[in-house]
């Protein structure tokens, strides 16, 4: 009687206990699965953002390369040192009457630089402003002014005339050839 009394009930309690444990385990597993899904979602969200960022980067690189191709004035057969001398020729042609002296090409960090001394006598201040504006407009190679000396020469019919000593550097990237190839592709 004693054991039968408990036996009958124990079975029921055991079933309820097992069911509770099974349910609780399922709950834990599901919570774990949910946590993993949340991590995955977070990773996918990051991936989506990065995907957009990568696409934007590609577009930006394309844009920069196109811009450089547009503003680079020479064809791909021109080496950087040649480009420097071509630019010097262009400057000489533009500054009629100016006295231009070229020095040896030097390397400044990743760039090649051609020192150019320009002496312009008997010009007006306005002429000088135009010349400096022209030099400023050059991009490849670009011009850095190391020194500009302006002295008053005298007064003529057109106004005050000046003498200008200009020391500039014409600068280009050092690996010109590689750049050309890149732009060619």
């Amino acid at each position, binding site marked *: *009687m004693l054991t039968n*009394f*408990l036996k*009958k*009930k*124990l079975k*029921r309690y055991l079933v*309820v*206990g097992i*069911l*509770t444990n099974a*349910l*609780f385990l*399922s*709950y834990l597993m*599901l*919570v774990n*699965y*949910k946590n993993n*899904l949340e991590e995955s*979602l977070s990773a*996918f*969200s990051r*991936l*989506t953002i990065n*995907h957009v960022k*990568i696409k934007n*980067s*590609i577009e930006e*690189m394309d844009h*920069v*390369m196109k811009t*450089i191709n547009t503003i*680079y004035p020479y064809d791909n057969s021109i080496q950087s040192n040649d480009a420097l001398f071509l630019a010097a020729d262009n400057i000489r042609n533009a500054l009629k009457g100016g006295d231009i002296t070229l020095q040896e090409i030097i390397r400044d960090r*990743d*760039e090649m630089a051609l020192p150019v001394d320009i002496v312009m006598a008997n010009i007006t*201040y*306005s002429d*000088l*402003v135009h010349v400096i504006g022209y030099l*400023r407009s050059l*991009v*490849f190679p*670009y011009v*850095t*002014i*190391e*020194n*500009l*000396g*302006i002295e*008053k020469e005298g007064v003529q019919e057109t106004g005050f005339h000046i003498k200008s000593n200009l020391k500039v550097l014409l*600068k*280009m*990237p050092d690996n010109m050839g590689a*750049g050309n*190839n*890149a*732009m060619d*592709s």
Partner: protein
Amino acid sequence: MSRIIVVSFENKLVNVIFAARTKKSFVIEDLLTLTENDFDDFLRHEKTKEFIVVSSFDDFFSDTFHIPPAKDKFIKIIIEKEIRKRSRLNDFSFIYTMLGEVVVEKKRMKEVFVFAVDKEYIRAIVDKFKVYGKVVKALYPDIFAVASFIGAGQEPVMGVMETGTNKNLFLVKEDKIQFVRIVQAFERGIKDHDIQNISMTVNYCRQTMKMNLQKILLLGNLCRNFDVQVNVGIPLTSFTHPVFSQKIKNKNIGPDFVSPIAALFVTRNLGIDILLKEDKIIFQTESVLQYLMLIFLVVMAYVFFQLGFVAKEVFELKREIGSIRKNLTGVEKTIEKYQNKTEEFSRYRPFLQSYRNYANIPDVHRLLIHLSDLSVGNIKLDAIDVSNVYGRKVDLQTTDEKKYYVTLKGKVDADQYASMQKYYQAFLKSVENIENLHIAERALNLETKSFQVEVIY
């Protein structure tokens, strides 16, 4: 309010009360009187699991004797041995009340009243419940339940109850039974014959037990079944209680259910539960298991509820991830394209760097335009010198920036010092107004009227 069911076995009948606990008492919700056969059906259909049981035992052993003083844990063993000696019982369950200390033959002894019942009788009662999986919370002998209920104080009181036609006489002092006697009778109710027996018992109490009774209480149906011509000499009253005046189906409960009602008021510390030890263990285990099951069920319900929530969240997450994955087609292609583009772009980096260098150079062209706009007035500029700032000792806050060092030389066309100073200051102010330009050094020679202003651009 939890529902309490008390079952009282009284001769061939079973009285059942359904009660609910209130703050200080109980409310009787229903009453039943069943035959023993009907009682099985009642247990089969009743959903309540726990019962308090009261029984009037036809066959029991009761006695008052003395035992030597001993530690509490040994007292029960001593009493059990004494019962075995004094009764014909072998396998029994008992309860006892310590009546006090007495001196017997110059020895201090403890006076004990014992009540013992053969385990067979107890098992017969408890098994009725076990068959239907019910739990017996406690089993009280009816006279003990009633004795604690009638509220006897210092003055001893005699209670008279009826079982069948027999009359149970018991002496109560301070809620403790001192003595029990069963008197056989041929009729139900209190008759002259019973009064004679009561008188004899009263005399016994007075002479042997040295107790003067203050009153005799008639209990149960004896309250209204009373046909007596003789006088006992002690007040004879019917016991009543506020619970008796509660109404069930417009009828007063009355004193007939005194045993089960008394059982409601029994407190655990009275020690009148005669249930077998093994049964107590089983029922306690059963109660623990029931509570555990209840906890499990609550946990199950909670977990099930949570499971639903989490499952919903999982479903949402999966849907969201699916939707993102759909939109993420071509990631590998994009990465491959990015790698190719980066490689291609690396060849453009020197150009980009050159372009940045170009953009960082201060605009000398703009500077010259600004200088041409200077308000010179009586100032005559003779020379301008623009030099790259590197190599010069100039206090620059941002030496990384490309700067130009500009020297302006000239003369002030004025005869008076004051006007010279005035024109010079106007010139300086005009210079200072030029954007991105600030004066580093300045000097005016009043004798030669020449000046030199050095500015950083």
